């Protein structure tokens, strides 16, 4: 796999489409365990991202990702803003100066992104957060990478959050009541990676 500036733009557009059409669904998930704003926040934030990067002229993948990061930080709101914003900023920094990005450097970029999110949210695997999707997904970026694996892994990981008890984020105030509901951040992360798989597949 190889990512170019245009792929980042396609990736963000596809993510935005998924978030817009699942806005109410994400909101209903967040009403069950959080403060009910995840759908609206993500839809608003990624709409702003697309406005910002569509048609813009970027030299490198890193430059495009940096604009994504800054827009998410200031426009998403909630906990998702600083978390996704930090993730994309770390990814951007890690890929600095590269014209095109292969799966090996993308994988280490995602690792940096995950580490940044863990630090920002003081969270780890198994706490019913988006970390539970990002962590297994990163492992699929091997030499034998294929987009179907990526989607399958992200989906399984997302579904696993249903039986977890939240120990981080607003849902942690609910204790055992958080069990039996999908984590909204894991669902939005699934859309992000599903869109990435589709982008990569289209480029082959």
């Amino acid at each position: 796999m190889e990512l170019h500036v245009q792929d980042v733009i396609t990736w963000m557009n596809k993510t935005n489409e998924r978030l817009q059409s699942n806005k109410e669904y994400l909101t209903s998930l967040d009403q069950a365990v959080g403060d009910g704003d995840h759908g609206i926040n993500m839809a608003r934030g990624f709409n702003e991202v697309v406005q910002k990067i569509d048609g813009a002229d970027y030299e490198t993948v890193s430059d495009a990702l940096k604009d994504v990061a800054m827009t998410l930080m200031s426009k998403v709101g909630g906990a998702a803003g600083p978390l996704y914003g930090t993730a994309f900023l770390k990814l951007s920094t890690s890929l600095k100066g590269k014209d095109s990005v292969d799966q090996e450097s993308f994988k280490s970029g995602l690792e940096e992104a995950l580490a940044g999110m863990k630090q920002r949210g003081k969270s780890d695997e198994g706490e019913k957060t988006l970390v539970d999707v990002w962590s297994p997904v990163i492992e699929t970026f091997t030499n034998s990478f294929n987009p179907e694996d990526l989607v399958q892994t992200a989906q399984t990981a997302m579904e696993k959050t249903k039986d977890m008890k939240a120990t981080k984020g607003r849902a942690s105030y609910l204790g055992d009541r958080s069990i039996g509901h999908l984590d909204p951040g894991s669902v939005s992360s699934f859309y992000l990676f599903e869109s990435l798989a589709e982008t990569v597949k289209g480029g082959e």
Partner: protein
Amino acid sequence: MKSVGIVLISHSPKVVEGIKDILNQVANDVPVELAGGTDQGGIGTSIEKIQSAIDRAHTDSGVLIIYDLGSAMMNAEVAVEMSEFDDIEIANAPLLEGAYVAAVESSMGKSLSEVQQAAEQALID
């Protein structure tokens, strides 16, 4: 030395406005700036609001930030990392009680670390 500036972050503008009213009774000469709610005035927190509150509250003695729930802390951290100042601390303190103690200590001319420590011990003894 000027007194340490204080920034209060809450998901709700009304929460920090109410706290500021309470603080004004004990220390009205301390810079207390508010970052309540989102840019649109809804429930949530905003990095831009936090940044501008830091800029307004900043003195030679620095700024202490006190926040309410989860994302407020993450946005506070981002704002601090992006700030040009390096004398900003985030207190792990209850918003109302911490702010109250911090305002009193700041008005007595205490240093940033003393004000932070006092705020973080607001509920102890």
